[in-house]
């Protein structure tokens, strides 16, 4: 009964979304002021009602999971009565159908948030923004109802479920999809604002001002979601890598790069009225790339832990939807853009020009990632052969494009609007530059081997960190209240510096040992000694595992006992690696079990890794998220 109610709620939600998408937008075209207002004011209640209905459907699906209702096909495919309760709940988005439902839930959540926090917005803008969000929602709800209904029944009911993919049975994975989706879907709000501005013909500073906090908060969610995914890959895949240039990762990185360009471009548009057309294009691109990401990940063209769907109808639907969104928004743009006035004048060197340069670098980097991700798929689809583009390409392309972009953060944020002098900027930053060069050249000696790569990376990190500190010191000496957005900017930039140092440190100084070990065998990575103390068989709720006790010693002192596991889940023949990690401020010690090398399972291949600076990666990401949140809640957006 509950699944049927959920299904019914989804159908009602589709109708309400249609109302939300069509009537308020119609209200912005009709001439009669009375009809105008009554149609436009439908937007807010419709958004609230739609959210309530989708939340009900989501709750219904969650109830089916928690009550082990294996007569629901989707539940029987992704859950099991032995699965711990929190994972049964997380299994709601453990497959294709449920994750789409989560997508729509997020979308309606964003819509309701816009409806609630838009009191300062004119009613016609609210109507347009919520109207566009409603139309997007119609598309996704139809997608769910026609091709991927999570409430479909299985008759006769299964005795027990097939269980959640063991890789997904992990706390990181419980929160990674919702965070990432909040980011992906949040881009739809930036998109809706851009389209609303195009529709109204009022592409001005006010639009950028309204759009900014929403875009920044969506960017923060996206950053957090990507960070969580990377963290999960690092400890759960058992390889000790944190970024693989997997197409699925690229699918989330592309909207992030464009969104980063967008939040900066929006600032120039708000403050100076510059780059209006460019900003609108970025907003369209950010959302289109989010949809493309959804398509790549969900359509089954990529095979990975994320690709659930193999039904070609689904891929076609998302592709068509993508075509409609991109096509209609670009047409609208082409129709309206000629009317956009040029913004305030700017000189060759000014904050605007730095922001523009960074925007372009980020967009080129996005294009490079897009090329490497899509090309093999296109070639395969056209039957022209099988090929792949590996990490060497992305590494070769990414660093030269992002190094200048990151370098420009500092001169860009100290330069004045409209007209700045290179000499003045250079003079202002002379001590920062000197300090950064000294640290860049010197630190590699302290850390171990000197190389150009590590020197450049550390210089870059030091440059951004010191430049940020300088700006903070100068600002606090001046009188006046310091807005949250200033702190947001500085903390986010500082987070980028920490991330850069982290990436450089891991790349340059990690030590990886793949060894064969018996009990009591010893591996040394100076100054740490690892000893395999014992191997035990242990039972989990829905798996059996071999657990190793690995003692970590430093100068003969016991530091820690690491317990990596090799798990065999009852529901699947595939073994799972649980790495054991000891995290410090400067380094991680990472041990994971490879495979048993003999019949008696007394000799194992073991990965023993020394990973310096890995905690800095996560710290950098968290700082960027914090910065984004602070910038978004600045009081001036709520006036």
């Amino acid at each position, binding site marked *: 009964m509950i699944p049927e109610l959920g299904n019914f709620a989804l159908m009602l939600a589709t109708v309400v979304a249609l109302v939300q998408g069509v009537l308020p937008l119609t209200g912005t075209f009709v001439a009669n002021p009375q009809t105008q207002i009554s149609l436009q004011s439908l937007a807010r209640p419709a958004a609230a009602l739609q959210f309530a209905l989708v939340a009900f459907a989501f709750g219904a699906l969650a109830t089916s999971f928690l009550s082990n209702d294996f007569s629901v096909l989707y539940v029987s495919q992704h859950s099991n009565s032995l699965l711990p309760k929190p994972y049964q709940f997380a299994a709601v988005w453990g497959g294709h159908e449920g994750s789409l439902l989560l997508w729509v839930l997020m979308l309606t959540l964003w819509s309701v948030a816009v409806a609630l926090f838009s009191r300062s917005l004119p009613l016609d803008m609210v109507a347009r923004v919520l109207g566009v969000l409603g139309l997007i929602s119609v598309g996704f709800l139809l997608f769910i109802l026609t091709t991927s209904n999570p409430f479909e029944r299985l008759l006769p009911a299964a005795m027990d479920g097939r269980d959640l993919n063991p890789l997904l049975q992990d706390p990181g994975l419980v929160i990674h999809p919702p965070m990432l989706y909040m980011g992906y879907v949040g881009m739809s709000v930036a998109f809706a604002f851009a389209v609303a501005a195009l529709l109204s013909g009022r592409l001005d500073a006010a639009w950028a001002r309204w759009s900014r906090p929403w875009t920044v908060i969506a960017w923060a969610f996206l950053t957090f979601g990507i960070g969580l995914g990377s963290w999960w890959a690092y400890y759960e895949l058992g390889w000790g890598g944190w970024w693989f240039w997997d197409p699925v990762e690229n699918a989330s990185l592309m909207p992030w790069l464009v969104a980063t360009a967008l939040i900066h471009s929006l600032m120039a548009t708000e403050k100076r009225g510059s780059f209006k057309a460019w900003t609108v294009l970025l907003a369209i691109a950010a959302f289109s790339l989010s949809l493309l990401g959804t398509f790549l990940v969900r359509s089954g063209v990529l095979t990975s832990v994320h690709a659930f769907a193999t039904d070609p109808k689904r891929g076609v639907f998302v592709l068509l939807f993508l075509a409609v969104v991109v096509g209609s928004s670009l047409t609208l743009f082409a129709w309206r853009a000629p009317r956009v006035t040029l913004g305030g004048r700017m000189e060759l060197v000014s904050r605007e020009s730095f922001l523009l340069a960074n925007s372009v670098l980020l967009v*080129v980097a996005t294009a490079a990632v897009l090329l490497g991700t899509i090309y093999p798929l296109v070639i395969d689809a056209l039957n022209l052969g099988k090929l792949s583009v590996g990490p060497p390409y992305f590494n070769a392309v990414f660093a030269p494009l992002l190094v200048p972009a990151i370098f420009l953060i500092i001169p860009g944020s100290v330069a004045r609007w409209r007209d700045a002098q290179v000499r003045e900027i250079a003079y202002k930053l002379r001590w920062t530059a000197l300090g950064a060069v000294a640290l860049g050249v010197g630190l590699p000696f302290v850390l171990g081997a000197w190389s150009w790569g590590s020197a450049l990376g550390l210089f870059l990190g030091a440059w951004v960190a010191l430049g940020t500190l300088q700006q903070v010191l100068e600002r606090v000496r001046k009188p006046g209240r310091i807005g949250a957005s200033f702190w947001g900017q500085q903390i986010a930039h500082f987070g980028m510096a920490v991330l850069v140092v982290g990436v450089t440190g891991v790349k340059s100084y990690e030590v990886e040992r793949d060894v064969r070990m018996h009990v009591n065998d010893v591996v040394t990575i100076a100054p740490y000694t690892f000893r395999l103390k014992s191997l035990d068989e242990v039972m989990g709720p829905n798996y059996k595992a071999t657990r190793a006790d690995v003692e970590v010693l430093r100068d003969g002192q016991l530091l820690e006992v690491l317990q990596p596991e090799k798990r065999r889940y009852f529901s699947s023949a595939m073994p799972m690696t649980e790495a054991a990690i000891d995290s410090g401020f400067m380094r991680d010690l990472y041990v994971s079990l490879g*495979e048993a090398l003999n019949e008696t399972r007394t000799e194992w291949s073991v990965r023993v890794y020394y990973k310096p600076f890995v905690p800095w990666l996560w710290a950098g990401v968290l700082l960027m998220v914090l910065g984004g949140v602070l910038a978004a809640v600045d009081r001036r957006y709520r006036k």
Partner: protein
Amino acid sequence: MKPRTKRLALIVGGIVVLCAAAAFVLNAFQSNLVFFFTPTQVSNGEAPKGRTFRAGGMVKEGSLVREGNSVRFVITDTEKEMQVTFVGLLPDLFKEGRGVVSQGKLGDDGVFVASEVLAKHDENYMPPEAKHALDQAAAAKAAQSVKTNP
């Protein structure tokens, strides 16, 4: 400088930088494309010498041999076979009789020196490349049998 010349300089400079970036990206792209070859293609000498490529198919039953940290195994597409050596730990899902894709270079002795053995995260999953190799071989076999049985 007059505002107009300045604007022109800005635009020209921008285009030059964009072209340079595009050329650089495409060049990196060109030199990092990794092509896929089936064991049949490799034995026909179609695979490049000295350049990294991917090869895949099934791991032949009983072919896995360990020597210290290195392993040797045979990839087959049921038609032709190829020897592979690899130093390092095999992924969890590597098994004899299962699909595999490995990336590396062909040595002078015709043995494929893998730098990477690719793992995917599903036991029932067959790498598309490996499936492609088996399909190709099956198709060739079918064509052969049509020819020989008039």
